[in-house]
C-alpha cells in the first residue's frame, strides 16, 4: 500500500510536471507575495496598497491575488510556483529574502514576469528588480533628528546588516551630524523585518540609553508605541508607511513607500506589450519615496529646512551622499563635491566616519 501510493504519486508527478501552466485568459493577473501580514501598518501594508492601486487603475482588466506571511525559505519557492500555476502573469515578490526563490521559479516559467523588490539578482530575462532610494528620505529624517534631539543621542533600529539598511544609517547620521556636530548615534540590530515585540525591546533599550529621537528600519509601529509611552520625551518617525495614528504623539514625520506608481506602470506595460526587463531605483523624484507630513512638534524653521532638502533632492540639485565623506576608519570615500555612484551604495558595507560600533559580521 505504502509503496503503491508512492509510485502512483511519482508517476502522476512525472507525467504532469508543469503541464498546462499558462492558460489563455483575457484578464491580466497580478500576484503579490508578502513577508508580513497586510495589516502590519508598514512595509507589507504599503505593498498591498500598491496592489490595490493597480486594481483601481485597471478595474476589470486585472485580477489581483496575494499571499501574506510567506516565510523566506523553502516555503517561498512553493508559494511562487503555485502562483505561477494559478495563472498569474506577473508576480511581485516583495522581500529581499525571496531572491533565490524568485530566480529559481522564474527559470521554470519563462512566460511569466517576476519582479523582485530590493534584490540584485536578475538571472533570467523574465526577472526584474525594483527598489526605492530610501536613503533620500533618511537624509530628511537625519536633519530633523539632529535639530530636535536634546540629549544629542539619536537611535536607529536596524533590521539586517545589508547595504540597503547600512545606506540608510549612514544617510541619517551624516545629516544629523551636519546640523548638530555633537550628535551620537546608537544602533540596535533587531535581525527581523517584522516582530513587534523585538522592535519594542529595541526601542526600550535605546530610550534607556538616553536616546530621544528614534528612527527604525523595521516594519511595525511598535517603536512609535514605545516612544508614545514617554509622554513626549522621545520622538520618532513613521517607517515604510505614514503611521499617521501616532501623528498626535511621537511621530514627527515619516518615510512613505509608495509602490503604486511602479506597480501600475509595470502591469500597464505588460498589458500594452511594452514590458521590458528592468532594474528600477526611483526616489523622491519618481514619487516612490514620500516624506510624510512634518508635524507641529517640529519648529517651523526646521520644517522649512527639511522640506527644502526634500525639494532639492527631488529636483536633482542635492544628493544625500556628496563628498567630502570619509569611511569609519578615516580613509577617504568621496572627495569634495563628488556624489556617490549607485554601485557604491548598492554594495555599501561600511559606516561613515563618526559612527561608533561595528557592522555585525
Amino acid at each position, binding site marked *: 500500500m*505504502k509503496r503503491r501510493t*508512492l509510485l502512483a*504519486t*511519482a508517476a*502522476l*508527478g*512525472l*507525467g*504532469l*510536471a*508543469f*503541464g*498546462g501552466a499558462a*492558460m489563455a485568459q483575457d484578464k491580466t493577473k497580478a*500576484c503579490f507575495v508578502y513577508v508580513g*501580514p497586510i495589516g502590519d501598518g508598514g512595509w507589507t501594508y504599503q505593498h498591498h496598497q500598491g496592489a490595490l492601486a493597480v486594481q483601481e487603475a485597471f478595474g476589470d482588466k486585472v485580477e489581483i*491575488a*496575494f*499571499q*501574506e*506571511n510567506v*516565510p*523566506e*525559505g*523553502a*516555503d517561498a*519557492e*512553493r*508559494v511562487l*510556483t*503555485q*502562483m505561477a*500555476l*494559478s*495563472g498569474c502573469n506577473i508576480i511581485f515578490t516583495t522581500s*529581499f*529574502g525571496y531572491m*533565490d526563490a524568485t530566480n529559481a521559479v522564474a527559470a521554470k516559467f519563462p512566460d511569466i514576469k517576476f519582479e523582485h523588490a530590493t534584490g*540584485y539578482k536578475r538571472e533570467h530575462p523574465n526577472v526584474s528588480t525594483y527598489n526605492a532610494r530610501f536613503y533620500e528620505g533618511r537624509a530628511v529624517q537625519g536633519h530633523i533628528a539632529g535639530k530636535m534631539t536634546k540629549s544629542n543621542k539619536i537611535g536607529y533600529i536596524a533590521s*539586517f*546588516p*545589508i*547595504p540597503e539598511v*547600512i545606506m540608510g544609517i549612514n544617510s541619517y547620521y551624516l545629516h544629523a551630524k551636519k546640523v548638530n556636530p555633537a550628535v551620537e548615534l546608537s544602533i540596535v540590530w533587531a*535581525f*527581523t523585518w517584522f516582530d513587534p515585540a523585538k522592535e519594542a525591546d529595541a526601542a526600550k533599550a535605546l530610550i534607556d540609553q538616553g536616546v530621544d529621537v528614534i528612527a527604525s528600519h523595521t516594519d511595525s509601529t511598535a517603536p512609535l508605541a514605545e516612544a508614545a509611552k514617554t509622554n513626549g520625551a522621545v520622538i520618532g518617525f513613521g517607517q515604510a508607511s505614514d503611521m499617521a495614528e501616532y501623528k498626535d504623539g511621537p511621530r514627527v514625520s515619516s518615510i512613505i513607500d509608495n509602490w503604486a506608481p511602479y506597480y501600475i506602470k509595470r502591469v500597464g506595460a505588460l498589458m500594452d506589450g511594452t514590458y521590458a526587463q528592468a532594474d528600477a531605483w526611483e526616489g523622491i523624484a519618481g514619487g516612490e519615496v514620500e516624506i510624510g507630513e512634518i508635524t507641529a512638534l517640529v519648529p517651523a524653521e526646521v520644517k522649512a529646512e527639511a522640506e527644502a532638502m526634500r525639494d532639492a533632492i527631488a529636483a536633482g540639485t542635492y544628493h544625500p551622499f556628496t563628498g567630502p565623506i570619509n569611511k569609519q576608519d578615516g580613509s577617504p570615500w568621496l572627495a569634495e563635491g563628488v556624489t556617490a555612484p549607485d554601485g557604491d551604495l548598492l*554594495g555599501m*558595507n561600511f559606516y561613515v566616519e563618526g559612527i561608533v560600533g561595528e*557592522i*555585525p*559580521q
Partner: protein
Amino acid sequence: MLRLEKRPSPSVFWERASPFLAVALTMVAGGIMFWILGKNPFEAIRTIFWDPLFNDQFAAYSRPQLLVKAAPLILIAIGLSLGFRAGIWNIGAEGQYIMGAIFGAAAGLAVYPVESRLIFPVMILAGAFGGFLWAMIPALLKTVFRTNEILVSLLLVYVAQNILAMMALGALRNPEGGGFPGSRNLSQIPSMANPELIAGTGMHWGVVAAFMAVIAGYILLQRHILGFQIKLAGQAPRAARFAGVSPARLVVLCLGISGVLAGLAGVFEVTGPAGQISIDFNVGYGFTAIIVAFLGRLNPVGILFAGLLMALTYIGGELAQLMLGLPSAAIQAFQGMLLFFLLATDLLTNFRVRLAKREGA
C-alpha cells in the same frame, strides 16, 4: 444531561476512529469560520483538501510537494512516538532539528569548495549526530539528576535558535552574500545538495529516510524486544521494572533515537528544500510533529498518513489564501482546530458518553 463514564478498558474502535471524527469536526467548524469570513465554506474546504491532490492546474506540482512537506514531519514524529509510548516526553525536537541542520551544514561548508561524493554522506552523519547530541542533554540530565525532560528539551529549543542565529550571522555566513545573514545555498553546491532524485516527484533523500523510518518503526514496535519494552514501560512502568527494563536505558534510547531522526530531518531540509542556514530556518516542524505523532496514534503507519494530512492542510491552506483570499491567520486557526478536536475526541477512547438520569428520579 450527558455524563461521562470511564470505560473498563480503552476502546479500540474509538482509538482508531477519533482522528477521522476530529478531521470531520474540523471541516465543519472550519467551514463555519470561513463562512463567517464571507467565503463559501464548501469551496474553501474543497480548496484545502481536494485541490492539492486533484486540481488540474496545481495537482501535478502540489502532490509531490506533499511529500516534501510531510517528510520532516513524519521523520520527527516517528522518533517522538517511541518516547511518547514509553512516557518519555521529548518536546524539543525543534531544537534537535535545528542542531542537525547546523552540524550537517557546518560539516559540508568546512571543506568548501572541495567536491567529493563523500561530502553528502558525511553531512548526513554529522546532522544525525547533532540531533543526537542535543537530545542527550535532557536524557543525561534526566537519568543522572532526575530533571524533567519536558522542560529541559523545550528550553533547549530556544538555545538552539540562538545558536542558529549566531551561525547565520557568523561562522556559517556566506562570505559572498553582501552582508545578508545566511549561509551559502547548499542546494546549489553539487556535492552538498539533496536534490529531487527523480525530477517532478518531490522525492529527495529525506523522503526516502522518512519511509524507511516508518518501516523501521513498525518493525521495532511489532517485532523487536525494545519495542515491547517501550510499550510495557508506557502502559505498566512497575511491571516493566520487574521485567528487567532499565528506565535510564530507555530514556537514553528513546531520546537518542528521536534526536537522531530530528537531526536527520534538519540536515535533509537544509541541504534540500530550505537550501541554507538562515535565522528563520526552522518553521516549527519539531512542534507540528508532536501533533502528527498523536494524530497518527503513535503508530508508524498512522503517522505516515497523519504527516501527509498535515502537509495537505499546509499546502491546501496556501492555495486557499491564493485562490480565495483567505487570511493566513484563518488557516492557522483551522490547523489549530484539528489538534483541538483530536484532543477532545480522544476522550471517547477512555470514556463513554451516557445520558445521565436526573438526581432522585
